[in-house]
């Protein structure tokens, strides 16, 4: 009787765990999609309204949408609102910009972090990107086209990749870089996959749009 009860308990626990894994991988994406929709609309409204007078990208408050990231190689529908901030709560909403690193188009390093799995997994496939691939960033001011220059796997503690000149903290930046960071390998957080890019073109946003 006891053995039987124990067995049933184990099977139940196993099934619940299985359901939980399913939730982790797919259920969490629903939350991200909701937040992306909401923040995307909010951002578009703010770009449309007060956009005429401002020329510089304004500082966005934490947890709000900052820019739109698109990676054509990952599909025409690949687009995410980049959130300002990289706390756990921020990254649940979508890829997040490290506060304190440069903004899109600026000299230095625009650093964005995102989930590789769970929460809609925005950076799931960035491992497939290769040198020369395009990363488009849309902001209130314009469109910035970055081209990938390098890809690395580093330890989670290698914070120098977020420096204005990656791996050379303290050096004076001359290039306009983008850096994407995400987990590596898949389903783990043991290492970080880093994708570097450099600005190759920029276009002003057409006023009134």
């Amino acid at each position: 009787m006891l053995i039987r009860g124990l067995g049933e308990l184990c099977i139940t626990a196993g099934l619940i765990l299985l359901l939980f894994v399913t939730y982790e991988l797919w259920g969490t994406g629903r939350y991200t999609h909701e937040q992306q929709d909401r923040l995307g609309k909010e951002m578009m409204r703010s770009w449309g309204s007060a956009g005429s007078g401002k020329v510089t990208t304004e500082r966005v408050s934490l947890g709000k949408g900052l820019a739109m990231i698109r990676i054509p190689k990952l599909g025409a529908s690949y687009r995410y609102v980049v959130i300002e901030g990289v706390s756990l709560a921020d990254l649940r909403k979508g890829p997040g910009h490290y506060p304190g690193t440069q903004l899109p188009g600026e000299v230095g390093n625009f650093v964005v972090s995102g989930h590789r799995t769970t929460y809609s997994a925005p950076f799931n496939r960035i491992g497939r990107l290769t040198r020369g691939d395009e990363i488009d960033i849309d902001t209130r001011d314009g469109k910035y086209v970055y081209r990938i220059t390098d890809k690395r796997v580093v330890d989670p503690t290698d914070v120098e990749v977020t420096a204005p000149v990656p791996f050379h903290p303290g050096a004076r930046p001359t290039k306009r870089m983008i850096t994407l960071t995400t987990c590596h390998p898949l389903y783990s957080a043991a290492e970080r996959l880093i994708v570097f890019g450099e600005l190759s073109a920029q276009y002003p946003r057409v006023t009134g749009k």
Partner: protein
Amino acid sequence: MYALIWRLLPGDRRVKAAVAAGLVLLVALILWYGVFPLVEPNLQFDHGVMNGDAPTSPAPTPSRR
């Protein structure tokens, strides 16, 4: 445990089966929408941020699952 629940369910076999299926669904929904969203933030295993101290992620372990 399950034998006891089965015996307590009303009706004949088919009614019992239907009620049991309903109960399973109910438990699954409570877990999915109620319990999991509360539990999940506490065991983040995929956080792609560069962090110096890394208090939550034990770096030497290759996989947490």
